């Protein structure tokens, strides 16, 4: 497959790429537009984005296995002139977003143990680079779809911390009026399609949103619609039928979607390697005719590079991408999980790769921010999160009358009562005091 045919497809599509271990050879990199020159200044390791599915075999660049290394390879810090990955503004924005995610989740743990929030609460500590790296590369009109570990996705997408915290407290001012809770965050304004408790069930919903974009452009002929959808889910989900079924459909119809796997190696107490016959999730993209990429999910800049490429690929109509982010959750599966199975060695290995600490170091070492800048951001976020708690605390609980209000978009669905009127017209019914 000649480079020219790739070029005619606007090139720079993605192939399996390895982020850990030694850098790969550059055979065939002429098909890549400028990308091979970039490197993550952070660790000096290359993220290679090159020709897409099928053709990679022709170029003889079969990538090899992902191996999590004990510690990131350290090279001497590159010169500032080499850095082209983020501007100061972008860097501060990314930092602030990750700090918000971390601080918010830490506050959730506190609030949970103080009985302000209840049920199953799944915290995102350690995975911030994935949410920030991907969601901050989106436009406002783009969609995201998450799982039960959705607080930080919501925050990254722009849902105000107050609304998320209120929702967690079960108050009427929550983003879902207190009706969804931790695992069901939704925002029409910010295009967050959920919040799902069952793994895998959000992937088809995300695929449907991507289908809508294609439909809007090709059937409704509205070319102003170019929304890309991101579907976030974990390693456990990648053994679920809906994952495979949706990869198939998305590739078949070239839907503008990116499937983002947050592989934190654990599905509650199930080790990824005990559950999965072929643990390299990125490889499964190729089986469905889409690029499968592996990226270091503890490195926000690497994630962002891959994200931008995959999102651009989707937006120009070249179809879906499967991105596997190697990441880790510092806390248990949920606040109810005693987290007894994970060994301290593994936890420590990832603790030293804390995405926030690493990015802070990067910003400081490369002169993009000063300690004072970063402290100011941390203080600002502290205040935002404190304010969110105060707001949630002061907010009212939903009244009884709210119970039936959102069962149906069209409340005629409650039917016609014995008196001939629609039941929703009965004031007792809408006040929540009528018998159903």
């Amino acid at each position: 497959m000649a480079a020219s045919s790739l070029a005619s497809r606007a090139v720079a599509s993605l192939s399996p790429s390895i982020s850990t271990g030694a850098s790969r050879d550059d055979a065939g990199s002429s098909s890549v537009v400028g990308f091979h020159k970039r490197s993550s200044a952070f660790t000096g390791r290359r993220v290679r984005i090159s020709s897409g599915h099928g053709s990679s075999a022709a170029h003889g660049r079969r990538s090899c296995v992902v191996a999590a290394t004990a510690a990131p390879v350290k090279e001497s810090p590159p010169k500032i002139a080499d850095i082209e990955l983020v501007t100061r503004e972008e860097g501060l924005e990314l930092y602030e977003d990750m700090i918000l995610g971390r601080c918010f989740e830490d506050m959730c743990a506190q609030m949970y143990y103080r009985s302000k929030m209840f049920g199953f609460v799944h915290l995102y500590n350690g995975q911030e680079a994935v949410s920030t790296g991907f969601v901050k590369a989106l436009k406002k009109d783009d969609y995201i779809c998450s799982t039960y570990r959705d607080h930080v996705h919501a925050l990254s997408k722009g849902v105000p911390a107050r609304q998320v915290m209120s929702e967690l407290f079960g108050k009427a001012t929550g983003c879902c009026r207190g009706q969804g809770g931790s695992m069901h965050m939704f925002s029409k304004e910010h295009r967050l399609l959920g919040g799902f408790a069952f793994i895998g069930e959000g992937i088809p919903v995300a695929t449907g949103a991507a289908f809508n974009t294609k439909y809007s452009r090709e059937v409704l002929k509205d070319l102003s619609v170019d929304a890309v959808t991101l579907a976030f889910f974990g390693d456990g989900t990648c053994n679920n039928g809906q994952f495979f079924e949706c990869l198939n459909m998305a590739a078949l119809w070239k839907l503008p979607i990116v499937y983002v796997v947050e592989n934190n190696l654990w599905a509650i107490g199930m080790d990824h390697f005990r559950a999965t016959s072929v643990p390299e999730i990125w490889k499964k993209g190729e089986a469905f005719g889409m690029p499968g990429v592996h990226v270091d999910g503890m490195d926000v800049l690497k994630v962002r590079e891959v994200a931008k490429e995959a999102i651009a690929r989707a937006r120009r109509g070249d179809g879906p991408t499967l991105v596997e982010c190697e990441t880790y959750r510092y806390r248990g599966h949920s606040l109810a999980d005693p987290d007894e199975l994970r060994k301290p060695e593994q936890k420590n290995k990832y603790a030293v790769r804390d995405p926030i600490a690493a990015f802070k170091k990067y910003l400081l070492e490369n002169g993009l921010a000063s300690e004072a800048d970063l402290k100011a951001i941390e203080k600002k976020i502290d205040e935002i999160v404190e304010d969110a708690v105060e707001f949630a605390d002061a907010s009212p609980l939903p009244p009884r009358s709210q119970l039936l209000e959102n069962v149906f978009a069209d409340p005629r669905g409650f039917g016609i009562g014995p008196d001939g009127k629609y039941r929703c017209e009965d004031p007792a019914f809408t006040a929540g005091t009528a018998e159903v």
Partner: protein
Amino acid sequence: MAAAAMAQKVLVPCSSSSSCGKVQFSPSRVHTQAIAFGGELSQSSSRKNKSLALKAVAGETSAPVTAKSGHEILLFDALREGLEEEMARDPTVCVMGEDVGHYGGSYKVTKGLAEKFGDLRVLDTPICENSFTGMGIGAAMTGLRTVVEGMNMGFLLLAYNQISNNAGMLHYTSGGQFKIPVVIRGPGGVGKQLGAEHSQRLESYFQSVPGLQMVACSTPYNAKGLMKAAIRSDNPVILYEHVLLYNLKERIPDEEYVLCLEEAELVRPGKDITILTYSRMRHFVLQAAKTLVERGYDPEIIDIRSLKPFDLFTIGNSIKKTHKVLIVEECMRTGGIGASLRAAIVDNFWDFLDGRPECLSSQDVPTPYAATLEDATVVQPAQIIVKVEQMLQGLI
């Protein structure tokens, strides 16, 4: 009202022979409904849509249907007509399912639509019910109006995750932010020796899911009207079609009409007993009614159409008149529509009942393949006759 307009329907249910049934469209049925209940239908402001539908009905005058008014159509084609009209009217309406496109649908409900509207609007999906139903839901949340077809309704069991958790719930858990205007439809019910898995009665399976509406069509007239209403509804609606009713023939209006999703249909007015039924059993009830009428009984037959919610107004008014209720359903005995309906009747109309509400349901058995066993699984007209006579003779 001319006697001719009150003429009995000529009906041969599909199940009795290989030829299709013919239902003569009787406008008097519509008239009667309006008159029997004091014309309240046109007065209620919430029924504006309904009166619109009434006006659109052909032959609303007392003149009987002539060969010139309306057009004859088979039920599957009436569904297709309704779907096509809605797709022409609203470009966000789309269909997805297995073989709906190039094949035209397993029962030809989508025949010709892919050629007319394109492969994206009539989408042939791979075989992955849970995922393509979920995809339809995601598309609906973001602005389309999707019609998801289960090639056989039984296949929708694979989509139960999406139907229960997402179609039913997302409007609620999102605090009302997203609406899910999907129609989930397909052929169900007991057919002709199709075997257990293709002969499922799913009404009860989805009945309890909060947030869903369910309707069952039984004639070309109500099939088209309900299809249109379901598509226009902002709620997720399950439209139950019956695998043996697709070839029913009826004359339906040329003018556009949309039926009310929440209303029941008065099929035959009477004063002796209220028979509540839906889908294929409607035709068995009508067949039994011929014998009952010959024997001097006067049953009032209501096709409830809306399986969830129940039209307690139509049902209640009938019970207040007759004081006796028999439910005839194809659903299983356990946890079926009849079970819920009996509870609703007892709760709301206890004072008007002369005896307990009776129910004929199908057996709690996986539909057997053998013809004799299959016939014994569902309610037959003979059983209906026996039951009604017992009830009207005070024997039960």
